[in-house]
C-alpha cells in the first residue's frame, strides 16, 4: 500500500512542479468550450441544447492530450523498469497512475464544467446531472486512457494513436453522460443513466488496470 501511495504522490508532485503541463490540458478544455458560443453566435436556446455534448466531447478531447506522456517519460528515463522491479504488480502501478491522472485532470474538469455550463446557458435543473455524470465518467476516461497510454509506449506519433484507440472506447461514457444531462434539463429521471455510468466505472476499476498492466508488461520486454 505504501508503494501505491508513493507512485501516486510522485506523479502528483511531478504534476505540481511541472504545473504548465496540467494547466495546458485544463486551459484547452476551457478555450475549446468558449469557442462554441463564439462560433454559434449567442443564441441562448441553441447553446443550451448543445451544452451537454460540448462539455463532454471537449472533456474527452482534453483528456486525450494528456495520455501520451503518462508512461512515455518513465519509459524513456528508465523509471518504468524501476516500477516493474518494485515488486508491485504492474496492474497496481497502472491503477496508481490512473488515480493520479484523474486527480490532476479529471478533478479540475469536474470543478470547471459547471462554471463553463453557465456560459453555455445550461438549464439550471441540469447542473446536478452534469456534476454527477462528470464525477462518475471522468474516472472511467482516466482508466481507459491509462490502458491506451500503456499500449502506445514507444510508438511513433503516440499522441494521435492514443486518441484513436481510446476515443471509441469512451463512446458509451459520452452517450450516457450527455443523456443524463439532457434528461435532467427536460425534467426526466436521470437515475438510469447514472446507474449505467456507475456500472461502467465499477467494471473499469478492476479490469482497466489489469489490461494496462498487461500492456505495460509487453512494453517492458
Amino acid at each position: 500500500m505504501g508503494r501505491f501511495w508513493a507512485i501516486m504522490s510522485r506523479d502528483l508532485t511531478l504534476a505540481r512542479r511541472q504545473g504548465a503541463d496540467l494547466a495546458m490540458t485544463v486551459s484547452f478544455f476551457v478555450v475549446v468550450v468558449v469557442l462554441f458560443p463564439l462560433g454559434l453566435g449567442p443564441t441562448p436556446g441553441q447553446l443550451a441544447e448543445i451544452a451537454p455534448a460540448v462539455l463532454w466531447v471537449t472533456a474527452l478531447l482534453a483528456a486525450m492530450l494528456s495520455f501520451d506522456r503518462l508512461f512515455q517519460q518513465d519509459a524513456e528515463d528508465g523509471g518504468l523498469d524501476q516500477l516493474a522491479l518494485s515488486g508491485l504488480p504492474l496492474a497496481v502501478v497502472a491503477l496508481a497512475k490512473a488515480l493520479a491522472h484523474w486527480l490532476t485532470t479529471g478533478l479540475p474538469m469536474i470543478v470547471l464544467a459547471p462554471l463553463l455550463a453557465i456560459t453555455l446557458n445550461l438549464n439550471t435543473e441540469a447542473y446536478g446531472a452534469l456534476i454527477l455524470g462528470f464525477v462518475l465518467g471522468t474516472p472511467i476516461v482516466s482508466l481507459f486512457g491509462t490502458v491506451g497510454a500503456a499500449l502506445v509506449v514507444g510508438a511513433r506519433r503516440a499522441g494521435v494513436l492514443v486518441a484513436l484507440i481510446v476515443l471509441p472506447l469512451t463512446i458509451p461514457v459520452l452517450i450516457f453522460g450527455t443523456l443524463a444531462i439532457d434528461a435532467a434539463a427536460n425534467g426526466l429521471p436521470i437515475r438510469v443513466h447514472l446507474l449505467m455510468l456507475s456500472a461502467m466505472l465499477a467494471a473499469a476499476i478492476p479490469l482497466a488496470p489489469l489490461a494496462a498492466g498487461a500492456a505495460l508488461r509487453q512494453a517492458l520486454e
Partner: protein
Amino acid sequence: MHRFANPTRFLRLANAVLPWLGGLTVILFGVGLYQALVISPADYQQGETVRIMYVHVPAAWAALSGYTALAIASFTFLVWRHPLADLAARAASPIGAGFTAIALVTGALWGQPMWGTWWVWDARLTSVLILFFLYLGHMALVNAFDDSDRGSRAGAVLALVGVVNLPIIKFSVDWWNTLHQPASVLRMDGPKIAGEMMTPLMIMAGAYFALFGVLMILRIRSLLAARRLRQLRLAVQET
C-alpha cells in the same frame, strides 16, 4: 495446435487447401446469389428490398467472427508466442474491417428505403461502428512501432480489450429498444425466419465464411513472404 504453428507446415497445408476453398467460395457465391436475388420470394412488407438482407446479415456475422478470430489469435500469440498467431491477427483485422464496412454500407442502403434514413444512432449501429473503429485502432497500433514485434504485442492486448464490445453488439437489440430488428436466426426458441429465406441466407453465410478463409490464407501467406523478404534483406546487409 502447436503442430500447425510451424510456418512451413502451415504453408504446405494452406497451399493445398486454398484452391478447394477458393472453388467453394465461387460456387457458394454463385448459388447463394442466384437463390437470394432470383429464386427467393420478395417480402410481403419490405418487397424486393429484403434481398439486401442476404448480403448484409452474413457480412455482419463475418465482421463479428473476424473479431473473435482476431481475439483468439491475439490470445494465442500472447500466451504461447506463436509467430503464426501474430500473422493471423495482423491478417484478420483488415479483413474484419472490410466485412464491417460492408455490413455498415449495406445496412445504410437498406435503411434508406425502409426506415427513411441512412443512419440512426441506435445501440446496434453504434456498437458496430465502434467495432469498425476498434479494427482501425488495431491496424494503426500494430504498425506504429519501429520494432514490429512490439507492435504485435500491443495490438494483441488491444484486441483482447476490445472483446468487451462483442456481447454488447450481440445483445444490443435485446437490452435497448432499437430501430434495428432483434435477432431472428440465433435465438433460444429457434429461428424465426421462413424456410425459403433461410436457405439462401445460410448459403450466403457459407460463402462469406469461405471468402473469409481464402482472404486469411492469402494475407497470412503474403505477410510470411514479407517477413522472409525483410530477413533476407537484413542478412544481405550484414554480409
